[in-house]
Structure formats: structure tokens, C-alpha cells
């Protein structure tokens, strides 16, 4: 089998991906593609990126053996890829550091971004502050209410946070609004998309910046265990932390890949955010992928206790990995994710983000069946401090 080499020139992962935007954005996207192709092969750019990842982000992130948790689960040895220890507390900054360097190389003076939970907004505001670039973050009015602390963090970092009142007033609408800003200000503005969705080249570019997670994991697990893991597990909203972990292992057929979507109140309830498990292919936000939609093609509102997974689409590469059978996609509900949140916090002294807790919840199901020789790596994509108000509220506690 020839090595994995998607997407094709026009951004297709099989039938998924592509470029589905209005004409005004076609040329700016072509310029972005050209710039990205040029700089990804430029040793100076690569050296600057590596230095930033080391000294600013704090990479490599540790691969931590969760001994007590593994014992409790009674099966495979479980390792946590500690993206929660990155600067700003999540994997998001791997990508914003890369795109911000690209923006500066392209001579753009203004950065825009969309954000749901606020993690990508904070990671964007952070790199914009560091490079002295103007920064505008679009955020659904609903999410601004739910994530007040991250909104304030972005403001402290000098970003303007624009509430989006259209549609369902959440992440998908923030993305629409950021696209509208970009189409209006293409000359001086760089749009930093936070996940592996959007029109080509975003899904490939964000993946490449996040693939540092998987490359490090590979080295670390080989050094530690002398072999590749049996399974990789990561949560999937848009899917950037999952692709970042999976990508360097796609050609290793012996490594099983599990993406974990948010089942919200349960797949049967209809209140969830699991397009791969319970949606259909369609076109949204510049690419063809699995979507949560009504029978007449309108995008429907999603639900998850985790704001970062609350998105009706998913990166097109995941859609392809699903259809090709290379990766498996499952869903865990709010209750299962919260149980995993508490368990890891109490057993390992590590408080995971609610997004990452979905991946952990699936590890609880997977580990016992793999036996004591099994090895699982789960992406601990972010820290849970941002979620303590949500967790407390679910338990009737006012913090």
C-alpha cells in the first residue's frame, strides 16, 4: 500500500473536503495555499516554529503513564499525552503559533478567529499579543454567557471579542461571522481557523501544525515501551487534537484509532454533537463532511456539556477515515464524560478538560478488554480548570 498522502491538490479526502466558498474568497485561499506550501518547506520558517514550540508553548509535552488509573481499569497500560501542560492549557496553541507565523510572513497585520469554548480564542489572542498583531475574535453570544472567564482572558490579552447574535448564537455562527469579516477585509487580515475544518488548505494546514502531538507520541512510546501502542483515543469536535495524534500513525495498520464524539443527552435523544456517529454527509463552512442537519438540509443545533465539542460538523479527514474504516468513531454522553472527569481528577491528580474527558470515558470502556499487555495513548487535549463552573453547576454547587 502506498503511504497516506491526502488531501489531493484540491483539498479532497476522498469525497470529503474541497473548497466550498463564495467567489470572493477563492483567490485569498489560493494565496494562502501558495504561502503555506512555500513556508512549510522553508528551513527558516521551520526553525522559527520549532523554537516557538519549545520555548513558548513548552514542547515536547510529556507522555505520562497513568499507573493508578490503569490499575483501576484493570487492563491495558494507559498513557496520557499531556497537551494540557502547554501554554494556555490546551493543544490549540500548536496551531495558532504556526498560523500566526504564517500570517506575519504573508505581511498580514490583523488576525481574526472564531471560538466556541474560548480556548482557540485565547490561544489566538495569545499569539497575536506576542507578535503585536491586531486581533478580533468572534464568539456566539450564547457562548459568551457560558464562558465569561475566557472572554475576559482574551480581553486582557488585547483582543476584541465580538458577540455573534445570528443563528443559534454559538460556534457555527461565530465561524460564519469570521468568514464574513475575512471576505470584507481580505487584504490585511489573516483568518486563523481553530480546527481541521473549513475550506482547503485549512484542514490540511491545521492538521500539519497539530501533528507534532502524534510525532512526539511516537518517539515517546517507542522509547518507553519499545513498540507502538495498540490504540490511540482522542475526542472529536472539529477534530484537531484527534487528527494531530492520529496522523503520524495512519500508515501503521496495527494501531487502532478511536475518535470520541459528544453524545450529549444520548444519541437517541437527538440532543448531541455527534455528526460522524449520527449525521449525514453535506456541505458547511467550506467543506464537504458529516453534518448534523434537518431533513431539508438546515444545520441543526447541537448539545454537549463540553462547549469545545458543541459543533454540528467535523473535519473532512475524519469523515474520510470513518468511511475508509481506518478509524472508528464512537460517542459518549455527558454523564459518562463527567464520571471520567471525576475519576481522573481523584485517581491521578489531573483535572482534564470536559472535551478530553470524553476520550477518557471511552478509555474506561476500552482498557479492560485489551489485557495487561495492551497499550493505549489518550490525548489529554486540555486542562479542566476552565470547566469547574460547569461541573459545579451540574452538581448544584455555586462556586
Amino acid at each position: 500500500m502506498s503511504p497516506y498522502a491526502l488531501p489531493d491538490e484540491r483539498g479532497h479526502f476522498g469525497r470529503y473536503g474541497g473548497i466550498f466558498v463564495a467567489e470572493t474568497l477563492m483567490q485569498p485561499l489560493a494565496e494562502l495555499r501558495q504561502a503555506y506550501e512555500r513556508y512549510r518547506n522553508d528551513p527558516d520558517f521551520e526553525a522559527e516554529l520549532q523554537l516557538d514550540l519549545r520555548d513558548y508553548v513548552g514542547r515536547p509535552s510529556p507522555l505520562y503513564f497513568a499507573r493508578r488509573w490503569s490499575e483501576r481499569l484493570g487492563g491495558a497500560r494507559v498513557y496520557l499525552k499531556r497537551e494540557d501542560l502547554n501554554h494556555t492549557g490546551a493543544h490549540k496553541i500548536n496551531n495558532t503559533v504556526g498560523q500566526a507565523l504564517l500570517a506575519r510572513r504573508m505581511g498580514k497585520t490583523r488576525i481574526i478567529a472564531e471560538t466556541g469554548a474560548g480556548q482557540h480564542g485565547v490561544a489566538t489572542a495569545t499569539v497575536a499579543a506576542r507578535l503585536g498583531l491586531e486581533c478580533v475574535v468572534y464568539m456566539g453570544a450564547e457562548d459568551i454567557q457560558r464562558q465569561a472567564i475566557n472572554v475576559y482572558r482574551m480581553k486582557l490579552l488585547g483582543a476584541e471579542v465580538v458577540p455573534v447574535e445570528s443563528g443559534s448564537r454559538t460556534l457555527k455562527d461565530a465561524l460564519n461571522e469570521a468568514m464574513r469579516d475575512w471576505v470584507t477585509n481580505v487584504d490585511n487580515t489573516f483568518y486563523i481557523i481553530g480546527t481541521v475544518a473549513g475550506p482547503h488548505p485549512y484542514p490540511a494546514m491545521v492538521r500539519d501544525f497539530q501533528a507534532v502531538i502524534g510525532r512526539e507520541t511516537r518517539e515517546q512510546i517507542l522509547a518507553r515501551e519499545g513498540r507502538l501502542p495498540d490504540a490511540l483515543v482522542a475526542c472529536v469536535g472539529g477534530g484537531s487534537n484527534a487528527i494531530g495524534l492520529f496522523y503520524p500513525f495512519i500508515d501503521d495498520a496495527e494501531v487502532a484509532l478511536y475518535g470520541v464524539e459528544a453524545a450529549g443527552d444520548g444519541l437517541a435523544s437527538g440532543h448531541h454533537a455527534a455528526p460522524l456517529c449520527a449525521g449525514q454527509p453535506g456541505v458547511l463552512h467550506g467543506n464537504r463532511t458529516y453534518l448534523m442537519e434537518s431533513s431539508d438540509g438546515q444545520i441543526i443545533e447541537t448539545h454537549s456539556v463540553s462547549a469545545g465539542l458543541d459543533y454540528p460538523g467535523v473535519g473532512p479527514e475524519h469523515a474520510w477515515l470513518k468511511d475508509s474504516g481506518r478509524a472508528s468513531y464512537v460517542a459518549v454522553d455527558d454523564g459518562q464524560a463527567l464520571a471520567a472527569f471525576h475519576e481522573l481528577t481523584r485517581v491521578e491528580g489531573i483535572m482534564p478538560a470536559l472535551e478530553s474527558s470524553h476520550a477518557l470515558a471511552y478509555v474506561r470502556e476500552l482498557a479492560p478488554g485489551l489485557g495487561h499487555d495492551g497499550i493505549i495513548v489518550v490525548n489529554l487535549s486540555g486542562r479542566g480548570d476552565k470547566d469547574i463552573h460547569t461541573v459545579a453547576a451540574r452538581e448544584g454547587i455555586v462556586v
Partner: protein
Amino acid sequence: MSRIADRFENLRKRHRTALIPFITAGDPQPAVTVPLMHALVEAGADLIELGVPFSDPMADGPVIQQASERALRHRISLARVLQMVKEFRETDADTPVILMGYLNPIEVIGYEPFAAAASAAGVDGALVVDLPPEEASALIEVLRARGLDPIFLLAPTSTAARIEMIAEAASGFIYYVSLRGVTGASRMDMQEVADKLKEIRGKTDLPVGVGFGISSPEVAAKVAAFADAVVVGSALVKRIAELATQPEKINADAGSFIASLRASIDKVGAAA
């Protein structure tokens, strides 16, 4: 010859610039749409662009976004929009109707069933905002097979190579987006538009319409001096929004606005 090509040919002979109003189907309520389409024709519209509501109208400004939201509160589906066109056709066999919207509602129906149903309903063309020609060959093929014109956008950012590709893919007419931005913005540079149209005309014989920032009879007249068609969307939809609670007044108000644009455009034609 398609109804759109026919209409432009006829207008050209009469030295008349086409006026194309845009309304969102089902806005502010379903019963308004078909009578409003007739009222627009009565007031001087030559073609009608009928917006298909979508939950995530990425290329639209706030005015048309909100029109979509109002229509979606009445669950206006693409199938329902086609019914409206069919009803319109019962008493107007001549005015071309172009659907304007986003790809996903068409994907759900399927390209061939959509083309068949649109053709049967009396639709003449489809402008799918988020479908650039690079991704459009399958849809173009089924539209053409049914005698429907695929309409494409050109923008200030379109390069010479893109203009050629789009001229190749399009039929009926080409819709030039007059500014960098979303529908309803207001920073059109008239000279830039005129220059770009000259470039486009060097590469195609298709009629070229201009839209996205035309808000008044004065702007319409200026654009009419060099365009084959003037498209008016947000300015019209805004008036409809203001009358959302008095829908019985919409036809008269929209009609008088379109008539004022018509008069302003025709003065330019008479002078030319």
C-alpha cells in the same frame, strides 16, 4: 434558448438594462412571496432572484441573514420554494426566476432530483453561492441537461484565469459582486467596478449583472451605465423587514421602490 438568454436578448434590443430584485422566499411569511413576485414584475423587474433560506448564510450580511431566519421560522424548505415558483408560473410564463442559495439544501435532495424538480416548477437558473466552478461540474451537467442556467459569481478578487474559467462554466448571465464583502455592504468603488466589467467583457459575451451594494436609485443608475443588469437585494429586503408585522403593505412599498429604481435606470438608458 433559455428564458434568461431570451430575456437578455430582448432587453438588449430595447437598450434596456435589466433590473433584478432579490427576495428571500417565505420572508416574512410564506403567503407574501408569490404575490410579491408578481408585484415586482408589475413594478418593472425583468428577472427575479428568489433566495432559498439557509441556516448558515456565510456570504450574506445581516439583512439577508435575518430574512433567512424569518423564513426558517416558517420551515421554508427548498421543496417549498419550488412550489412557490410553480405557483408564480401559473400566471407569469415569461419572467425568468433564478434561485439563489447555498449548496447543502440541494445536496440533501440530490443534484438530479433537484434539477428535475426545479425545471418542472419553472425555475430558469440556479446561483449556488458556496459552489465555485471547481466543485460544480456534476451540478452544472444536470442543470444544463434540464435547460437550467448555472449562474456564477465573479468578484473583485477574481483573477484573469478565474474569469475565463467562470465564463466557460456559466450560462444565462454572470453576476459580478461589486465589492469585497457580504451582501448589503456599502463601499462600492464605482470606477473599480467599471474597470473590472471591462475586463470581464473582454473574456465573455454573456450579459453581466452587478450586485451586492446597490442601495438606492442613484447607485442603480450609475451601475446601469455599464452593466447589463442591476441586482438589488438587501435594500429591498430591508424594506420588507420593516413591514414584517404589516405584510399587507409589502407589495405596494416594494413595488414603489422597484419602480423608482426602474425609472432611475431607464433615464440612463434614454440618455445613452
